[in-house]
């Protein structure tokens, strides 16, 4: 029977979408931030794969078609951004300052914690690009001599975490302005955070999309400045 799962390409897609539906149902039923549909989908898929003895490679034969859509979807983020262009022009100073402040704060935080834990230079530069979108982060990590596989994992975990905790952080720090919320999500949690920002509203989503691109580019600069400090 296990051969059947190996042979069908639709297995990965079906359990991924099913897991996401389960997540949506749970979120609707209990209204808790921890019950994040993406997080639940990931847990469901991992559990089902373990249960049926399906390895990652087999799952991903079908799953990869979902990942295939990621580049076109990111390109599409230009559409909400275009619709909110006047907002961007009106607030460009706040946008640039907010994003830069967040990136510098993140780099200082990573430096301080790496010193605290006595991490090696290699481990430190592995963590530096953790808030940017995967493709840029991998490039930075490679450039600086980090462990690219761990950087990728860290980026994905950061994204999911940011997606899950965003509303709690906004409540705690009284971040209410939709522009500020969107920038915060995109800057801290890249595209996975942007998915959350889109749920909050079109302005949030547009600002978060902008943050992915700008933060990615600013981090290329900041990481090369911060890398020699440990």
């Amino acid at each position, binding site marked *: 029977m296990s051969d059947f799962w190996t042979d069908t390409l639709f297995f*990965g897609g079906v359990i991924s979408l099913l897991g*996401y539906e389960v997540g949506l149902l749970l979120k609707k039923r209990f209204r808790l931030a921890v019950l994040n*549909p993406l997080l639940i989908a990931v847990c469901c898929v991992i559990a089902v*794969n373990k249960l049926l003895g399906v390895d*990652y490679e087999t799952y*991903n034969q079908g*799953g990869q078609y979902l990942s295939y*859509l*990621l*580049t*076109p*979807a*990111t*390109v*599409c*983020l*230009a*559409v*909400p951004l275009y619709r909110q*262009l006047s907002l961007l022009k009106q*607030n460009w100073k*706040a946008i640039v*300052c*907010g994003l830069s*402040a*967040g990136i510098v*704060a*993140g780099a200082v*935080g990573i430096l301080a*914690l790496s010193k605290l*834990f006595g991490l090696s230079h290699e481990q430190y530069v592995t963590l530096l690009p*953790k*808030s940017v*979108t995967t*493709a*840029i982060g991998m490039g930075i990590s490679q*450039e600086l001599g980090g462990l690219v596989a*761990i950087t990728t994992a860290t980026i*994905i*975990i950061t*994204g*999911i*975490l940011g997606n899950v*905790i*965003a509303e709690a952080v*906004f409540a705690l*720090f009284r971040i209410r*302005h939709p522009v500020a919320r969107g920038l*915060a*999500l995109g800057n*801290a*949690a890249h*595209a996975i955070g*942007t*998915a959350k920002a*889109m749920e909050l509203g079109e302005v949030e989503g547009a600002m978060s999309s902008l*943050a*992915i*691109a700008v933060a*990615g580019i600013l981090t290329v600069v900041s990481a090369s400045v911060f890398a020699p400090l440990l």
Partner: protein
Amino acid sequence: MKLLKQFMLILLVSLVGELLKALLPLPVPASVYGLALMLGCLCLGWIKVEQVDKAADFLIEIMPIMFIPAAVGLTEAWDSLKPMLLPLAVVILLTTVLVMAVTGITAQQMMKKGEKHHE
């Protein structure tokens, strides 16, 4: 048919994004080139927003599911994560909150100041 044309345009821009990535020696992913390119085309009127909006809204809405396979792939990276698990967890948790809070608060404060200035 309309929707198909919209997908075609989006895939075309993605393709040119890939091309730019192959040609330029920068650590910028194809998707970010594509995003900038699409925004440029919309601003210049080369692509009208009605020519891509339906497919774009759909793709954006289902975006979270596109991260599922990569996140499930974390189980493969488990062995390399194990040795630095504690520092990793602390760094990820604290700095994610830090970046989010500092970005949001700074932007919000600056916009408040700007609004007062206008009054």
